[in-house]
């Protein structure tokens, strides 16, 4: 419990520091001015999503390998956090796209890939909802999760061959794409803050999944006890 408190305090402090750096310290952008500042939220959200989905992939393998249920709890929690981040990433992208490009949406490589990724992991969550047996649900959804994760690079490279409209990467994007050093520092701080926040949420979500599992076990136990107790009572009343 103490770990949770410290992690939350740390994430909150990082978010405040990151927000301050992004809004007041980072310099104004030449062409987009204040609008560019959505970048300090948009990019960290995708970083959080990629970390969450990578954790989910590792957890899928962990479950298939060890058969320890906590891997399955981690997998479903990480996918849920990933889907929420993906939704937020798409939303912040649209908020920026409207004033910058004049349109909410375009079928560009990165946008389309993100959308397909969103669909893949929403399907994962739907699949879990339609499988009854917990062991089988964990196994089959892990197999699907692995397929979905392997699909992501293929989706991106297929879309990449279409014309792309999204701003080119400024961080690892070749010789001419230099990010102002202050901007880069603010961005790194924001990325750390969002990944920390993702970790806090993920931790709580796993805890919730464990409690659900325990509740389910207790319920089954009590059902069995009442069923056992009911038999002689019925016999007496006749």
């Amino acid at each position, binding site marked *: 419990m103490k770990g949770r408190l410290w992690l939350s305090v740390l994430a909150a402090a990082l978010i405040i520091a990151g927000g301050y750096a992004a809004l007041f310290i980072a310099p104004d952008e030449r062409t987009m001015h204040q609008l560019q500042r959505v970048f300090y939220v948009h990019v960290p959200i995708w970083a959080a999503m990629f970390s969450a989905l990578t954790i989910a992939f590792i957890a899928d393998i962990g479950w298939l390998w060890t058969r320890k249920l906590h891997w399955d709890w981690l997998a479903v929690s990480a996918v849920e956090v990933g889907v929420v981040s993906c939704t937020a990433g798409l939303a912040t992208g649209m908020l920026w796209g409207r004033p910058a490009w004049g349109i909410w949406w375009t079928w560009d490589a990165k946008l389309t890939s993100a959308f397909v990724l969103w669909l*893949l992991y929403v399907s994962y969550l739907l*699949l879990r909802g339609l499988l009854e047996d917990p062991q089988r649900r964990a196994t089959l959804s892990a197999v699907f999760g692995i*397929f979905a994760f392997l699909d992501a690079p293929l989706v991106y490279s*297929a879309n990449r061959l279409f014309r792309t409209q999204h701003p080119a990467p400024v961080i690892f994007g070749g010789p001419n794409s230099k990010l102002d050093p202050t901007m880069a520092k603010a961005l790194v701080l924001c990325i750390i803050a969002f990944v920390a926040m993702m970790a806090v949420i993920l931790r709580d979500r796993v805890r919730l999944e464990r409690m659900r599992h325990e509740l389910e076990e207790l319920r089954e136990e009590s059902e069995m006890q009442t069923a056992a107790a009911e038999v002689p009572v019925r016999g007496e009343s006749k």
Partner: protein
Amino acid sequence: MTAARAATILLRKELRLEFRRRELLTTTIVFGLIVVVLFSFALNPTPEESRRYGPGLLWIAFLFAGSLMLNPSFAREQANDTLDALRMAPISSFAVLLGKMAANFVFLALAEVILVPAFAVLYNVSLARVAGRLILVLALGTGGIVIAGTVFSAISAHARMRELLLPLLLLPVLAPLLIAAVEATALLLTPEPSFGGSWLTILIAFDVVFFTASWLLADFLTEE
């Protein structure tokens, strides 16, 4: 027994079962034809537009037909309680998967043998001069649909609402395959047909990645 031999026996069993009643093939082909006809009602394309949108239409028809056709692959075993027999057989679970994939490939390929010429005639597209290259693109694309589809058919067979679930799982995963197959086919239908090397690379990558994954994960799909 080697996996290849077990898979061949399973393939023969699947083919015998299907050719006794031909339910799967007839429904798939008729469904594909309906999509091809509805397309002309929905968009009323000129011959020029047919060449442009035709490949997309054709692959959408294959994807939808495939996602319907692949459903019984494992659901039928589930309904007849024969999945346990397959599990108990002294063969690897990958052999079961491989046999099913081969059978589904044959079924979808047979449907395409009818659908592609029908499409060519109805939309006035000449395919004869690119036949060899088109067959390669069709084989790679069909392979991808069948590899992922057979695995997901084994997954959805255990779920509620499995008929609805399979397309939901399969179609987003097939998105890169659809893009690459459509673009590779479109390049073959232009006045000067060319071979889309990078699109073929994506198709091959898709097939190899998912075939390897299903080989590694086969045991988990059939376990009790």
